[in-house]
């Protein structure tokens, strides 16, 4: 319980936070059209905290992470809101120049991508790629870098470091590659590690190894983790707090424990119900009817989940709900909570 309480306090920003996202919107701007793909996202990630973002494809979870890294593709841009990184001093990431951002990437914030096959350059050895991060961000001698590199490989569970140093990515298995990528991400001791579906491409037994490793490393390295995934099981395994994204908006935000024991948004309830009914042999599964709306449909649809929601009321179709506090440390964007909850945002 004590652990939970600190987690809660961290989440509310009363203790130091590493990253604060306030009212973030991301806009697609092409000649033909202009609309928000991510809208009004608020998150704050405490020191050493493991924070999860869960959502289906197209919910905007990866775009949010790319916005933090300032890596959004050209057609997309942050149209509103702020992303603040609090390390030695606070920095507003959306306002930094390219150069300033390069100093932060890989050093203060690192990112792990889903596909360990494409995240490494096939033409360079592991040694080259791993030490490149250090070369860019530090002034260590070559010998020191090699030592640090070998030490880091050891920490991610690669014992034959010297051999691996000489190998090329194609000579390693998927699990090994993902370990190398984690080593690269952590070698500068970042304050925040963003992991975008880090285990989706891996088999379950390897997934278990990698999640275990990430949990250990965040403890020993004082690193906060932002875990982005579609898999609620992975969230439960690793995170303390979680935000549920749907159609570009946060629908529910709370501790992982509360999300699983007392989900309050109908979308979260539906998701949990449909996964939990799996295993009941051949009985009809609970499923959320319909499809996720496309960004072009977002405008004037009221609550974005209303077309698929079993509790939809008249107001849901015309007016977007605000974020209500349903209990201590638990918010949900749904009209059902209008009476009991306190609105903000």
């Amino acid at each position, binding site marked *: 319980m004590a652990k939970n309480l600190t987690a809660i306090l961290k989440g509310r920003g009363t203790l130091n936070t590493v990253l604060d996202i306030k009212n973030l919107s991301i806009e697609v701007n092409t000649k033909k059209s202009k609309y928000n793909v991510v809208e009004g996202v608020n998150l704050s990630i405490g020191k050493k905290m493991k924070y999860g973002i869960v959502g289906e494809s197209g919910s905007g979870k990866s775009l949010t992470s790319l916005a933090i890294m300032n890596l959004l593709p050209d057609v997309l841009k942050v149209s509103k809101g702020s992303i603040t990184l609090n390390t030695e001093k606070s920095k507003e990431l959306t306002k930094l120049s390219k150069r300033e951002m390069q100093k932060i990437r890989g050093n203060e914030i690192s990112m792990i991508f889903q596909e360990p096959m494409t995240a490494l350059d096939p033409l360079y050895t592991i040694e080259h790629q791993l030490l490149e991060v250090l070369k860019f961000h530090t002034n260590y001698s070559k010998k020191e870098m090699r030592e640090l590199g070998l030490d880091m490989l050891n920490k991610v569970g690669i014992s034959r470091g010297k051999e691996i140093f000489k190998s090329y990515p194609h000579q390693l298995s998927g*699990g090994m590659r993902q370990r190398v990528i984690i080593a690269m991400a952590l070698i500068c001791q970042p304050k925040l590690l963003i992991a975008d579906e880090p285990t989706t491409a891996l088999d379950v*037994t390897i997934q278990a190894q990698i999640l275990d490793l990430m949990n250990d490393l965040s403890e020993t390295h004082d690193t906060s983790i932002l875990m982005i995934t579609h898999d*609620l099981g992975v969230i439960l395994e690793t995170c303390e707090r979680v935000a549920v994204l749907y159609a570009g908006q946060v629908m529910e935000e709370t501790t992982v424990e509360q999300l*699983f024991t007392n989900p309050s948004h109908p979308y979260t309830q539906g*998701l949990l119900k449909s*996964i939990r*009914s799996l*295993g009941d*042999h051949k009985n009809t599964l609970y*499923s959320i009817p319909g499809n996720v709306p496309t960004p072009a449909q977002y405008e004037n649809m009221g609550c974005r989940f209303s077309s698929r929601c079993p509790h939809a009321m008249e107001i849901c179709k015309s007016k977007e709900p605000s974020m209500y506090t349903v209990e201590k440390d638990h918010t949900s964007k749904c009209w059902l909570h209008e009476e009991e909850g306190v609105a903000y945002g």
Partner: protein
Amino acid sequence: MADTAYAIEVKNLKKYFPIKGGVLKKTIGNVKAVDDITFNVKRNETLSLVGESGCGKSTTGRTILKLYEPTSGEIFLNGQKISDIPRGKFRRMRKDIQMIFQDPFSSLNPRMTVRSLLLEPLLTHKLASRKEANELVGEMIEKVGLSKEQLDRYPHEFSGGQRQRISIARALIVKPKVVILDEAVSALDVSIQSQILNLLIKLQEEFELTYVFISHDLNVVQHLSDRVGVMYLGQMMELGETKDIYNNPLHPYTRALLSAIPSLDPYEKKERIILHGDVPDPSNPPSGCPFRLRCPKAHDRCAEEKPRFLEKEKNHWVACHLFDE
């Protein structure tokens, strides 16, 4: 003639892919993708093949469909031996055994409308005149939960879940007896996945289908299957009824695999068996038991002798020396 209570029988199936090398492109080794597996699938049953990538589950599925020629072994479809029928002749029998693939984005021709996608198999197999075929297409599209108005659209106009419905309609329109589903719901989001699973279960009852369901998702497999076969490095490690495999797994690999599924209950304390290392290279598998290098219970005998595949309990087979005294 084999026993016809089974829709599919596979006996000692092997599929090796040669590795060519040197100046003369001689065969210098083999990737043993499927190495001596035996199983059968009863009529109207769902048998799932599970395992990690590279375990040979997809190769098994494709070899049954004769997309690959087996290296050795026998395959029977409804009692008829199909493993030695030449490809050209087998084409006529393909309507009895259909396949649904993982990726609904690449398995549908983007230049064909849904109508022509569904008409094509009927006309190729000469199952109906054009007029009858058009009616059948209309019926089928409604069975999979889409409407007749959507028939003249192209695949890109549909979402992933809807495309998978089209793939299902295309596979089922020729009235097959057996359907091989290779990771058929793996690319779909959770909320869409359950819609498609419900549809598959409904259609299985309606058309009396036999499913071979290939997947790495153990939660989905538990829901859908009557029996489950666990594969590792081209070999069948354990085969049994779903409830026996999930409640009473015998093989150390099955136990580790099941313990690795992330739990969905915050209060459940699960004892996790973390396997060390990776799946070995299938062109150079370890001696004896293929799992011994990662097995927490490996002993001397495992390196010396390949374990036999034995029926340890009724209808529950396992290949492990721990159960072969």
